[in-house]
């Protein structure tokens, strides 16, 4: 290219330098008079800017806005320092009990000391402002999984989603759409969408989490989620629950430690020396999935030594005789062979429990993710029943929940059965569905074809056990939408990826996790920096585009704020503006109440009393209580109104009415001699926090834990590279030799091993989901994520 002299001169004139080509490529070719049609900014005097208003010109000072965290499902109360629309810092919100205490009096006494936040909440800024976040809807180009994406507008994304879903509906029926989502976050709009679209196949996270615990407790004492009063307990016995590591609510460590400071004894039953076990007075190491056997033996000691609460059993339980007979041979010696826990230890613990003034006896997702989970949870839930340790201070308390009310559309139930057998094959399944069975349908097309899948705020590929099957199932889909903040392993396989919102950009109502009525507002603290839609807005927009309407011609019209406002009004009769103005944007609706089961009231009008069971139900069939001839007593929300040692409802559906112990189905074998389990730690949530640099600095890897002696026998040293191999997958990892794990067990912190998600997450650690066969528990339908045998050898 020839450079004209006058242009060289111009360059020198502007820059004061001698012209060299290298120094300033192509400066000379600026023409200076071209008409630029692409952007119309120049047409306007101020271009892409406009004149600032007087208010906008003022210096910006920071404000604090109250909201709720959602780095996990714990919904901890937080306050956020916002300067000029940008978040500077997040701190605890002492007005919200989540993060302070779960008992009303404790909350009132402790709130002046302030709330608390976990490492994830403290690292939220790193997720919110992560440049790796998805920024615009994108459409797949080329083969599924080829990694080629074309950015499209939100309008195009809505159009694309609507037209593809219409096509699928026409070809295969509405029920061929399966939907999976996180729970407790914008679920109502998604349920509404499925209802109006006509598919019964909505699923959410709970099925991967704690539905076996839910069924364990609900079939025994009628409440799906009793909460532990750690702070006031005399004794705490936890089976496979790690509240100091897999913490969900930021107040858990504080209330546990306050309890310990007051002298509570903490006993943790777990194959792993978890963060909670590390603080325990006693760690009981046992074989995975055998907790139920130990719980039965505790029952055996309490019953045979007549240490139980006779009054409580007489007044508030049924089926004790059958239980007594059943438990007679479940001796501490019997369980020792199964669990490896010495018989005398079990005997001592049973006696200690029985002589305690109060005790929390709880079970969660350790044993909860095994093939015998529900009966195991039931065995545990019966121990407090023997001792009357329900709904009293320092025990397991039924929360008095009040909050927003989901106002559903009027639609006929879909004619199609659910594809996952919920309500049929799984009469005791949970509303969150049966992931494993839904996946089976995606793989086999049975009981009917599933052709489209929507995943919202959930990394399904890494969360559901048996990764290979997940990948295949998604490949079978004709159309896949993933809504998420990052390009997860699931999003990689989508046809359409839609950017999700960060919790600091959206609304939600959070009314769970403490024993008294309380509700915290989650509200947009900042505008989405990607200028995206929230999940609510996107789902609504697709629904509108599809023209979905209910029987009364009502469709998706409300904004998320309006919808939330209506739910609040219907539930607790306050407006969103009122809630926002409350201290810490948190509503407190009452105190913790105890022994609610014994309280009575007048039989309400229109109520129906069952002549056999004396159970009183309202005109809609909803449980009210038990009639004593004059009053209706609250009782427990089981079919009999009492705690049920013997469950007729289980028997009626072909399950064992008593909490039988059965061996885990996928135990180690001679070829795969070690139990493989997984767990969570405080630094991470599920599989979704692994692109957060701060959290990854705190915990960047998940070496395979192995007992030191076991490692020595295998000739392994701490830090060695090993192969972890199960019957379905193998992967390389590093080994951490520790005294803190059962010698027959190896384990991985769940959530690592990403091959997508983001640049920080990629390639760190081993994904545990690949090793597990991926079964559903027979009663609750719980996805089994901690049961398989593996072999370990030097890599």
């Amino acid at each position, binding site marked *: 290219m020839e450079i004209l002299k006058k242009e060289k001169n111009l360059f020198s004139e502007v820059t004061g330098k001698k012209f060299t080509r290298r120094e300033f490529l192509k400066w000379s070719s600026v023409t200076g008079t071209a008409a630029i049609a692409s952007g119309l900014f120049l047409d306007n005097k101020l271009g892409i800017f406009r004149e600032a208003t007087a208010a906008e010109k003022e210096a910006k000072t920071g404000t604090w806005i109250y909201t709720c965290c959602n780095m996990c499902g714990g919904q901890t109360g937080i306050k956020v320092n916002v300067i000029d629309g940008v978040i500077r810092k997040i701190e605890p919100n002492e007005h919200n009990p989540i993060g302070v205490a779960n008992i009303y009096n404790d909350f009132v006494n402790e709130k002046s000391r302030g709330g608390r936040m976990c*490492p994830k909440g*403290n*690292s939220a800024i790193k997720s919110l402002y992560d440049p790796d976040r998805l920024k615009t809807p994108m459409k797949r180009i080329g083969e599924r999984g080829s990694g080629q994406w074309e950015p499209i507008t939100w309008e195009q994304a809505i159009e694309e989603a609507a037209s593809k879903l219409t096509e699928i509906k026409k070809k295969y029926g509405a029920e061929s759409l399966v939907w999976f989502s996180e729970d407790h976050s914008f679920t109502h709009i998604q349920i509404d969408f499925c209802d109006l679209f006509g598919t019964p196949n909505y699923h959410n996270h709970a099925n991967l989490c704690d539905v076996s615990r839910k069924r364990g407790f609900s079939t025994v004492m009628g409440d799906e989620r009793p909460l532990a009063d750690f702070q006031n307990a005399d004794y705490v016995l936890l089976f496979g629950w790690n509240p100091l590591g897999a913490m969900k609510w930021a107040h858990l*460590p504080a209330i546990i*430690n306050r309890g310990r400071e007051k002298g509570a004894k903490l006993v943790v039953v777990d194959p792993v020396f978890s963060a909670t076990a590390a603080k325990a007075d006693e760690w009981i190491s046992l074989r995975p999935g055998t907790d139920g056997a130990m719980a039965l033996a505790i029952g055996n000691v309490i019953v045979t030594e007549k240490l139980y609460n006779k009054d409580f059993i007489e007044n508030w339980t049924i089926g004790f005789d059958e239980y007594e007979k059943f438990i007679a041979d479940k001796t501490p010696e019997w369980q020792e062979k199964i669990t490896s826990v010495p018989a005398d230890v079990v005997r001592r613990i049973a006696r200690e429990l029985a002589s305690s003034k109060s005790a929390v006896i709880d079970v969660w997702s350790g044993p909860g993710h095994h093939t015998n989970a529900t009966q195991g949870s039931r065995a545990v839930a019966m121990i407090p029943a023997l001792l009357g340790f329900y709904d009293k201070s320092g025990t397991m308390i039924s929360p008095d929940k009040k909050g927003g009310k989901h106002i559903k559309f009027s639609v006929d139930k879909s004619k199609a059965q659910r594809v996952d057998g919920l309500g049929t094959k799984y009469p005791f399944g949970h509303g969150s569905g049966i992931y494993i069975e839904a996946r089976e349908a995606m793989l086999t097309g049975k009981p009917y074809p599933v052709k489209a899948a929507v995943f919202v705020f959930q990394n399904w590929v890494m969360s559901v056990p048996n990764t290979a099957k997940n990948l295949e199932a998604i490949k079978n889909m004709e159309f896949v939408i993933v809504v998420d903040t990052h390009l997860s392993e699931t999003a990689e396989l989508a046809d359409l990826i839609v950017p999700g919102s960060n919790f600091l950009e959206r609304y939600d109502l959070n009314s769970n996790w403490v024993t008294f009525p309380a509700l915290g507002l989650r509200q947009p603290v900042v505008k989405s920096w990607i200028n995206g839609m929230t999940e609510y807005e996107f789902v609504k927009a697709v629904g509108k585009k599809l023209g979905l309407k209910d029987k009364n011609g009502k469709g998706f019209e409300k904004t998320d704020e309006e919808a939330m406002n209506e739910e609040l009004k219907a539930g607790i009769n306050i407006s969103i503006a009122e809630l926002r103005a409350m201290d810490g944007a948190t509503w407190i609706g009452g105190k913790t109440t105890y022994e609610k089961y014994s309280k009575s009231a007048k039989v309400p009008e229109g109520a129906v009393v069952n002549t056999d069971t004396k159970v009183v139900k309202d005109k809609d069939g909803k449980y009210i209580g038990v009639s004593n001839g004059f009053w209706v007593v609250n009782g427990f929300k089981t079919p009999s109104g009492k705690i049920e040692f013997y469950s007729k409802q289980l028997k009626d559906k072909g399950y064992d009415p008593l909490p039988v112990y059965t061996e885990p189905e996928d135990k180690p074998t001679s070829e795969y001699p070690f139990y493989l389990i997984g767990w969570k730690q405080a630094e991470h949530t599920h599989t979704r926090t692994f692109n957060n640099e701060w959290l990854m600095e705190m915990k960047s890897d998940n070496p395979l834990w192995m007992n030191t002696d076991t490692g020595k026998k295998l000739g392994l040293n701490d830090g060695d590279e090993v192969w972890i191999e199960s019957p379905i997958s193998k992967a390389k990892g590093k080994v951490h030799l520790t005294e803190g794990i059962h010698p027959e067990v190896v384990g991985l912190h769940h959530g690592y091993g990403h091959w997508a998600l983001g640049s920080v997450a990629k390639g760190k650690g081993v994904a545990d989901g690949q090793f597990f066969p991926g079964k559903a528990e027979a009663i609750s339908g719980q996805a089994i994520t901690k049961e398989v045998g593996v072999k370990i050898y030097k890599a």
Partner: protein
Amino acid sequence: MKNQLGFYFNQDNCIGCRACEGACKQQWNVDVTVRYRKVHTLEGGKYPNPITCYLSLGCNHCEEPACIEVCPVKRIEKREKDGLVVYNDISLNTDGTLNYEKVTCVSCGNCKNACPYSIPQINESPSKGKKRYEKCIGCYPRVDEGLKPACVQTCLGLALEWDKLAENEKISGTIKQLTGFPDPSDTKPSTRFKPARKTSNDLKEVVLR
């Protein structure tokens, strides 16, 4: 020093969650590789009676800090009013973050080498200002406003507290040294401890875990 402030670390309550590390990072916009506060994990014991405990450490704001004298540019000072050991070459930005643009540090590492607890850490490639050593400053801008340090405020397990050293000394069971914490006689650190109820003498720091 009469009004010396200091951390109180109740090891029995520390659950090793690292919320303190996160709160510190947020407070001072500290990116990865530099940790003003760090939680150390210690393991010991023998199956089935293993021990895991934690040690969360920021600057100990020593009564006789070793770092001050060895600094060739004299950028470290002990505050008259509360004994906090701070830098004299940083200021506060309007958004409350630290401004290191006029930092005088020559990155000699003397402070880190002199500190028995290896608290100062090098920030190799800061986005603003030059390479320098940084450390916990006891959140003095917060403290001056009557707030507790960020790590103390967020602590999930009631493990970190903050008060006048004289007050912390009065708590029953208070000791000056925990396993894993170097000899305090050299610099007289202002941190006090309550030990975990279960401990052992074979504790080792574990990194890979």
